[in-house]
């Protein structure tokens, strides 16, 4: 299929019909939702699946022999299989359901790394990480004397595999890198990073909270050790995420939370633990949310994802071109092959003032540090304004953004 054919294989305007919220108005103006990197809206299929399931088939999973419990368990495990397929993991027992991307990363920090960490051991991470892929490692610094090694990005926001490799030393115990930055849109050269790290015997965790939404992920091809995703950015529900971990790692890891379902046997004196993935899923899991996540992945997978990616890149290119006219607007992050995230500083205008004015024009963008303060420091800013695009955004929404920016300039400039 040619690149052109791929573009026509996805129609964002038709897709919008499935997202009721996109048809609404705010302050009497059509909503232009460009805060997708914070969270995506959910298609009708996801909401229907959750509701239908809760209304017709719901019970707690795993522990019951009755009909509804069996049905629920089947749906829950089918969702696990859907995640496996989505990431192309070898086996479903390499998929652990979590409450979100943040918990997935914390799980690796606490159950994989913490037990074997010596003071002075190093963790390599990049300056473009989200706080969710920073603070868990800071915990290990605070509590166990780990050393954080920071990999810088280029001025255009690009992440260089050589820079990552250079940061890996004999004491490095893990490389933790965002697949895609939520501010810069930079896509890390993950496969090459894994290759170099493995040559030095160092495992790699990817924070795929953004990456999995916009890239096609194949954990086997990447040969990556851990990959974290979060449901609500994948057009799925809140309250759920997942961790992919190589089976050998998961098998060797200690449990995370303690409670029901993750045990083998409990007595007054001792406790033994279940095999993965159950070992890491203490308590009643997010069952209805798993059903919603499966629906979201089915929704995504039914699309021509290459075509969606092309559409998103087109939106970014169009937006980038369109804001050129504003000489007061300075882009932050413009690496080759980046995802559809437009972050910028506005001279003489604070991001929050800008976002407030855009909001009243119906245009929802984010202003702030985007949970990436280390990156803000790197670029010498306190905050940025960010427009982030999803599959359902259109060029005319980019036009609306541009018009709103012009208005903001008139008010504040």
């Amino acid at each position: 299929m040619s690149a052109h054919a791929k573009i026509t294989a996805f129609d964002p305007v038709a897709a919008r019909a499935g997202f009721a919220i996109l048809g609404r108005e705010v302050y009497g103006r059509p909503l232009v939702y460009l805060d997708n990197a914070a969270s995506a809206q959910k298609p009708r299929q996801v909401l229907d699946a959750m509701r239908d399931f809760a209304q017709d088939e719901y019970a707690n999973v795993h522990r019951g022999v009755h009909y509804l419990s069996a049905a629920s368990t089947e749906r829950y495990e089918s969702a696990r299989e859907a995640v496996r397929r989505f990431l192309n993991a070898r086996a479903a027992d390499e998929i652990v359901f979590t409450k979100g991307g943040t918990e997935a990363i914390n799980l690796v920090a606490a159950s994989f790394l913490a037990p074997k960490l010596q003071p002075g051991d190093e963790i390599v991470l990049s300056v473009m990480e989200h706080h969710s892929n920073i603070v868990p490692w800071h915990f290990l610094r605070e509590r166990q004397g780990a050393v954080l090694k920071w990999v810088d990005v280029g001025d255009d926001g690009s992440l260089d595999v050589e820079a990552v490799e250079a940061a890996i030393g004999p004491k490095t115990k893990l490389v933790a890198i965002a697949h895609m930055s939520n501010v810069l849109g930079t896509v890390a050269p993950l496969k090459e990073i894994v290759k170099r790290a493995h040559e030095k015997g160092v495992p790699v965790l990817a924070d795929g909270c953004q990456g999995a939404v916009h890239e096609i992920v194949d954990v086997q091809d990447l040969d990556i050790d851990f990959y974290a995703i979060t449901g609500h950015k994948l057009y799925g529900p809140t309250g759920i995420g997942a961790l992919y971990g190589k089976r050998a790692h998961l098998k060797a890891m200690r449990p995370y939370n303690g409670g029901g379902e993750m045990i083998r046997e409990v007595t007054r004196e001792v406790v033994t633990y279940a095999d993965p993935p159950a070992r890491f899923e203490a308590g009643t899991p997010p069952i209805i949310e798993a059903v919603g996540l499966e629906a979201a992945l089915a929704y995504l997978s039914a699309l021509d994802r290459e075509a969606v990616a092309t559409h998103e890149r087109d939106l970014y290119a169009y937006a980038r071109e369109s804001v050129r006219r504003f000489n007061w607007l300075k882009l932050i992050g413009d690496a080759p092959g980046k995802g559809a995230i437009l972050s910028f500083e506005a001279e003489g205008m604070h991001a929050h003032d800008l976002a407030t004015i855009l909001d009243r024009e119906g245009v929802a963008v984010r202003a702030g540090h985007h949970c990436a303060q280390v990156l803000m420091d790197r670029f010498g800013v306190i905050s940025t304004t960010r427009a982030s695009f999803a599959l359902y955004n259109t060029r005319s929404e980019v036009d609306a953004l541009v018009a709103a920016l012009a208005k903001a300039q008139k008010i504040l400039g």
Partner: protein
Amino acid sequence: MDDSLRELYQEVILDHSRHPHHYGALEGASHVGEGYNPLCGDRVKIYLTVDSGGRITNITFEGKGCAISQASASLMTDALIGRTAAEAERLMGGFLHLVKGEEAGGLADEDRERLEAMAGVSAFPMRVKCATLAWHTMKSALEGGDAAKSE
């Protein structure tokens, strides 16, 4: 243009934010306070001098922030210089009511008039923290307490 936006970014606010009054460090300040808004990363530092009679003789501020927070800090210095700590306390309480759109009982007419420009914030609940940052910092500086944050 949206009326509430016009109200928020009215000329006096933009003037204050572009040309803030009493901006800079204050040598020999008797009290200093630092404020931080974790939402956006903005910071403010408040310097003030209180004389032996408990009257605030001078206030200055430093820091970067949005138009709302800068204007609010600037207006605050104008409003509080020359007041006693007790008067300042009352005025601060009144201001908090004002920006939240509540009945601002504690304000004298001239104070209300002076601060009225900030009332537009009440239509923007997400921005109230921007307006109150300097004031919370002022309060904690006066009380000699910790760094304030606008939460």
